[in-house]
């Protein structure tokens, strides 16, 4: 009787105590699981950064020593005779530049079609889908395709074939960014321009494109960065040329192809040149990516 008058402390009730012990244990195991996952995920990020750092450091250690003026002024020579990378560098610049000139307008028009004309139409969705697939399609297949339509019928590897292959890779990159950037433009702007009596094409070219220009430039920079490092499609199209040649109807030298053949060669000085070329191209590509980001950020 007297036991009921004095209230029992909660902890002394046997069942409750057990509950709390389990719930504390449960809390601890939940906290432990959380801690383990946090450590693992942080570790995963460190691992990802480690890979990037390892690649960059390797390129610097093996490639920086080979950088000298002669790399940029001498053409490729047989092993042992101190050649440079002038013709691959010029060849890459020409092919990437012309591929961008060819691919960009087409990509912009397709992106404009998707953003301004297509709406939710079947054709528009199909084009968007196909363009997305082309964006991730294996680039080696683009090379094989151009080999089939240009190299075989016209009797030989050529700079032009390389340019066409790279241009096909440029198009979907520009399509994607153009469409995305045009979609960000508020409709009120379009209505205002149309309301002033301007025709639709003027509205697109003079207002929408101008408003989206930094985004479109970002897309072009990313496309240039992408094709500058492409190797596989050039194997079947412009092939590479150990001699100095600016003739676009002939096989044409390029940095990635030269890196590929030099890195696989048994000659020490060629391998060093391959690393130097790899350093140049990686710095160029990563620089373009950083530039593209800053262009986009400047607008926001």
């Amino acid at each position: 009787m007297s036991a009921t008058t004095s209230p029992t402390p909660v902890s002394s009730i046997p069942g409750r105590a057990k509950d709390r012990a389990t719930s504390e244990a449960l809390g601890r195991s939940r906290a432990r699981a959380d801690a383990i996952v946090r450590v693992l995920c942080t570790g995963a990020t460190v691992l990802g950064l480690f890979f990037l750092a390892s690649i960059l450091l390797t390129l610097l250690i093996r490639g920086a020593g080979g950088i000298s003026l002669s790399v940029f002024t001498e053409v490729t020579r047989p092993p042992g005779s101190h050649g440079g990378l002038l013709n691959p560098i010029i060849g890459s610049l020409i092919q990437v530049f012309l591929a961008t000139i060819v691919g960009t307008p087409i990509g912009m028009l397709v992106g404009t079609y998707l953003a301004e004309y297509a709406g939710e139409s079947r054709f528009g969705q199909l084009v968007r889908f196909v363009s997305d697939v082309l964006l991730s399609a294996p680039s080696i297949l683009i090379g094989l395709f151009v080999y089939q339509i240009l190299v075989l019928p016209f009797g030989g590897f050529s700079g032009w074939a390389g340019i066409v292959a790279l241009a096909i890779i440029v198009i979907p990159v520009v399509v994607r960014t153009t469409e995305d950037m045009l979609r960000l433009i508020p409709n009120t702007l379009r209505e205002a321009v149309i309301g002033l009596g301007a025709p639709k094409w003027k509205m697109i070219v003079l207002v929408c494109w101008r408003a989206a220009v930094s985004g479109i430039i970002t897309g072009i920079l990313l496309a240039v960065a992408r094709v500058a490092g492409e190797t596989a499609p050039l194997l079947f199209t412009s092939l590479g040329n150990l001699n100095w040649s600016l003739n676009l109807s002939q096989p044409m030298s390029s940095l990635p192809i030269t890196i590929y053949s030099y890195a696989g060669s048994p000659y020490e000085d060629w391998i060093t040149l391959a690393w130097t070329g790899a350093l140049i191209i990686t710095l160029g590509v990563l620089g373009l990516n950083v530039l593209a980001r800053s262009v986009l950020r400047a607008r926001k």
Partner: protein
Amino acid sequence: MAQVAVPETLEVAPARPTTRKGSGTGDTIFAFLCRASAALVLVLLGAIIVELFLGGLPAFRAFGAAFISSTDWDPVQEIYGAGVPIYGTILTAILALLLAVPVAFGIAFFLTELAPEWMRGPVGTAIELLAAVPSIIFGMWGFFVIVPVMASTIQPAIIDTVGELPLIGSLFQGPPFGTGLFTAALILAIMVLPFIAATMRDVFLQVPGVYKESAYGLGSTRWEVMRKVVLPYTRVSVVGGIMLGLGRALGETMAVTFVIGNANRITPSLFGPGNTIASIVALEFGESGAGSLKLSALLALGFLLFVISFAVLALSRWLLRSRLKG
């Protein structure tokens, strides 16, 4: 702009029909250019499929359906089969995903939930820069840096431990060359890692804040919020991102060509040399003359690669698209 538009509208009232006519032609031309370019993209994809198929036709004719399953590859006797490269392509790509997906998830989780605010931008950018490194650079790095480490340290260690186990042991036996299917899968994993991580991060960021806040309010840990709120919400898109990574891994060429060891036979061990469709095409293309059966076999391989990667990429886009609509 305003200066051009204003006089036009002021004049327009009486002279409207003529200006409308002029702008109508401009509109027609511009719309036609846009449509034609859009159609060109479709034609391009169609032409790639048709050309690769036509190029491969002699090989399909010569070997029939057995081309796909046959593991013979004998240029001397002009016998070609796609079995070995298809096996290598699918094996390395799947293995690469097994290695890459957990790490990519970790990075995405870290970037969306764990990292302090100031760290998210720079770390995210660094991971995305990893995706921008050209394929051939991964190949050189793999060949000159990873392969020696694999041969001297990692492979001997695995052969001595896992290789001794009963069932799965046979997958990890043989001499430690450094090159081979396993190394190729590892390099592929590093290459697709940033694509998968970036897609996962983007879809995780789309989960409405209130869902997460209510779970936190009930006392959930971050891991519980991820596992019970974020992942179920984004499941479809996460799978889409993984498929996107798979599509990349299937067609990757230069990096794999450097490290796969290039052998046209199926070895029981993952450490053995092999081939993928992309690597065999890149390596043997130079030795196949125009019009030869070998060239046709390589184009037929290209066609098969296109079919496989098209299916994977289409599925990936479809899964990622459903997120945007839902």
